């Protein structure tokens, strides 16, 4: 009798239902699977199962040379492949002790920040789709196509860019980057603004996101959160500021911080980070224009990469958080062991804790807001 009205009344019926969501489910983004136990509509326990996209990347890395592994890194976080490339290349450069020319670093900054914008656009769009707001997705994807066009016209690939080389970048920015960027920038800002108008103060959106799956900063740190999800909890930590790599200490930008660590804060942080990224690109491009046109793009790198024996770890702030590569070299031309530290792997393991006691529909909202990319989650 009472079971019919057991929906979130605070009364447990003691009658749990086990719901299997995924791995093939529209809201599960491909290959995620959650086995949730619910009491009415309240999640009592959620157990994520991963590995449905485990492609053996780390093992593969041990059988490829250092250069050959760059295209494999594209396929980790495929929403922002360039950030993965840069992270891996910087790790190998650290292992080799290579100093990258300034111009190459500026191009890297510009491209990584464009990738960050593209990644955040996917997240915001998909979060909207999963919560029933389809329009922002279309608004954002149009601008995203334009970013893709810049990538494509820089090195021929839309998604898996294989950007950069060990020791620098392969090509200079083409001549009409200036025109492209001047056209793209107002459109990006407009798309962000439109999305903001559609979602941020929308009553339904606020109800579905504010206070949903809030997380405390202590918990977030204990679970190994990094990136926007950590900043949403109120911890001001950004590797671009805290451990500046590349040239990031020369740019002025804000690190947006949330308060409650709920879905709304994660969304807002991403919206504001897109604006900050646009600022960084502007500054980086201004610096780039002051460089001599024939400034070197590549450091002196031997043809066969044969690093000395040793172990290094290098991490950058990828759109999702700290993306690190641990490389152990045995002195041969192949890495002895590559360990990838994907940001969303650490975040997703806290998922049972995040959704405990929430409604089953909020489970979907939470999952979307964490930006779990199966490629880097399972490797």
């Amino acid at each position, binding site marked *: 009798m009472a079971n019919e009205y057991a929906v979130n009344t605070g009364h447990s019926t003691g009658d749990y239902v086990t719901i299997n969501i995924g791995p093939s489910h529209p809201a599960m983004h491909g290959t995620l699977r959650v086995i949730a136990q619910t009491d009415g509509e309240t999640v009592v326990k959620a157990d994520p199962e991963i590995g449905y996209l485990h492609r053996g990347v780390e093992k593969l890395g041990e059988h490829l040379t250092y250069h050959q592994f760059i295209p494999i890194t594209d*396929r980790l976080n495929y929403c922002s492949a360039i950030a993965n490339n840069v992270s891996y290349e910087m790790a190998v450069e650290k292992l080799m002790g290579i100093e990258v020319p300034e111009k190459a670093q500026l191009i890297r900054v510009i491209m990584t920040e464009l990738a960050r914008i593209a990644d955040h656009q996917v997240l915001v769009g998909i979060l909207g789709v999963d919560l029933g707001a389809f329009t922002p997705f279309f608004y954002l994807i149009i601008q995203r196509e334009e970013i893709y066009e810049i990538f494509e016209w820089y090195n021929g690939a839309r998604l898996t860019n294989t950007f950069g080389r060990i020791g620098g970048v392969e090509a200079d920015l083409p001549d009409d980057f200036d025109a492209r960027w001047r056209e793209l920038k107002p459109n990006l800002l407009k798309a962000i603004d439109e999305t903001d108008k559609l979602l941020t103060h929308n009553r339904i959106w606020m109800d579905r996101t504010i206070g949903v799956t809030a997380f405390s900063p202590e918990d977030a740190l204990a679970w190994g959160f990094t990136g926007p999800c950590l900043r949403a909890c109120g911890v001001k930590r950004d590797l671009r500021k805290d451990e500046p790599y590349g040239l990031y200490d020369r740019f002025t930008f804000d690190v947006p911080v949330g308060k409650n660590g709920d879905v709304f804060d994660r969304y807002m942080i991403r919206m504001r980070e897109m604006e900050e990224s646009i600022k960084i690109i502007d500054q980086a491009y201004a610096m780039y224009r002051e460089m001599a046109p024939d400034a070197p793009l590549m450091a002196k790198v031997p043809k066969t990469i044969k690093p000395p024996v040793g172990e290094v770890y290098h991490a950058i702030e990828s759109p999702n958080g700290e993306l690190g590569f641990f490389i152990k070299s045995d002195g041969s031309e192949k890495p002895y062991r590559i360990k990838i530290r994907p940001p969303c792997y650490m975040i997703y393991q806290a998922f049972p804790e995040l959704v405990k006691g929430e409604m089953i529909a909020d489970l979907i909202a939470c999952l979307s807001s964490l930006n779990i990319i199966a490629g880097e989650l399972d490797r």
Partner: protein
Amino acid sequence: MEAYTGSGWLLTKLEQLVNWGRKRSPWPLPYGTACCGIELMCALASGYDMARFGAERPSFSPRQADVLIEAGTITKKMAPILRRIYDQMAEPKWVIAMGACACSGGVFRTYSTLQGIDLVIPVDVYVPGCPPRPEGLLYALLKIMDKIDTEHPLRGEIAGLVEGK
């Protein structure tokens, strides 16, 4: 009798009608697992707009889908699930293997990756590329339409009806 069971006028015209209907509404089941899923998303969204070709409604349920677009790597852990999804689809059904991983395993020649989804399910159109451009996927969809045109959906059934089976 020939008009009903053979390649007579009535049957061919009726078949053309059925094929025309099927051809204009290939509802896709987007089964995006990895990188190709993002390009699949781009193909469905504004810009490339797959709905132009009648693939208006991405059907997330296998029961109401015609074309399974398998975009991305299928691992050995995932393979039985893909097979199950395919089995759940109602006839007639077609499969597009999108991307190098779905066609042949791609760069991932490893212990955990299935070396091509045709080891598990039959594939109609292969789209190479890592990932293919959305245009490639649209072309594959047009190929599926061509394939639908060449099929004789009614021949067996009508013959059965006439013979009283």
